[in-house]
């Protein structure tokens, strides 16, 4: 057995050319699967970021605290775009390109339906929290230190429940992708 510490430097399978290590050979579909996985990580990562933000700002009435998370929220939005786009494009590619799977397989159709539903709920969630962020920015620029209205919006609002519904759907997609029911 090769030692677990096998690295680019010690693994003979990673061919050397002179002093430089050449990139290992990877088929196009293997690349597509890797990009599909990275996109899925981006999507789950974004939901993790938003969940932490919701917990950290739970019932906060401080507009400055909310606006402090603006850049973190933008990073989450970027990951959502990468995640939603990448999972569907590379996922459908794989379903078409690989002989073992078809787009009309039950578990693939289930994933597509869940992806669409998750995207719609996620969009609604985003709109809800965007309004709250705009409210916080206005309050902050007007010099307001506290706002009960903001505290209510940062609690168990409609956007909050939509967020957790989106999380549940993404967990179902991961379960569907791993167990592949009916495949």
């Amino acid at each position, binding site marked *: *057995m*090769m030692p*677990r*510490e*096998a*690295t*680019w430097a010690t*693994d003979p*399978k*990673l061919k050397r050319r002179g002093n430089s290590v050449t*990139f*290992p*050979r*990877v*088929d196009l*579909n*293997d*690349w597509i*699967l*890797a*990009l*599909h*996985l*990275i996109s*899925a*990580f*981006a999507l*789950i*990562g*974004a*939901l*993790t*970021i938003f969940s*932490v*933000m919701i917990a*950290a700002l739970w019932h906060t009435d*401080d507009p*400055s*605290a909310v*606006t*402090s*998370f*603006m*850049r*973190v929220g933008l*990073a989450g939005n970027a*990951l959502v775009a990468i995640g939603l786009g990448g999972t569907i494009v590379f996922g459908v590619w*794989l379903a078409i390109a*690989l*002989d*073992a*799977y078809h787009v009309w397989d039950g578990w693939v159709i289930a994933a597509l339906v869940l992806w669409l539903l998750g995207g719609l709920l996620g969009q609604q969630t985003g709109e809800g929290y965007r309004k709250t962020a705009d409210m916080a920015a206005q309050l*902050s620029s007007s010099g307001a230190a506290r706002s009960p209205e903001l505290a209510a919006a940062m609690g168990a609002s409609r956007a909050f429940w939509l967020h957790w519904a989106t999380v549940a759907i993404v*967990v179902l997609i*991961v*379960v569907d992708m*791993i*167990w*592949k029911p009916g*495949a």
Partner: protein
Amino acid sequence: MIGLLASIRPDSWNFPLFLHVTGAAVFFGVVTLAAVAQLTAARAPEPEVLRRVAFRALLIVGLPAYIVFRIGAEWLYSKEFPGDVEDPSWIGIGYLVADVGALVFLIALILSGIAVRKPKGWLSKSSGVLSAVILVGLVVAVWAMGAKPN
């Protein structure tokens, strides 16, 4: 090749794989949050809020997520490579990133914890940079797990 491997994967591998993938993806999200929050804290209206949240997220969510993804990885490894089966290259890449990543993660966690108590910008930024380094490693590891380079 991928389809063949996927189709012959025994059902008993699914739960460890679920733990491994979910834990790693949540860890990815927390590390991203920590990197962005700590690297942009200085420009935020309340930098101490971002630093505190980054530390708590790394500790309360990141650390358990890392443990779950490593347990899933070891469980899966014991099923997929029993006995003296030779490890493929992608396993080596995964272990390298996970082991070095754990060390870097612990340093980032400690630095972010100190930054909460002693609000010095460089401590928080260093933790943010280390989190970004972990992020790059995770992307490479996910690529290796998916592409499985030979």
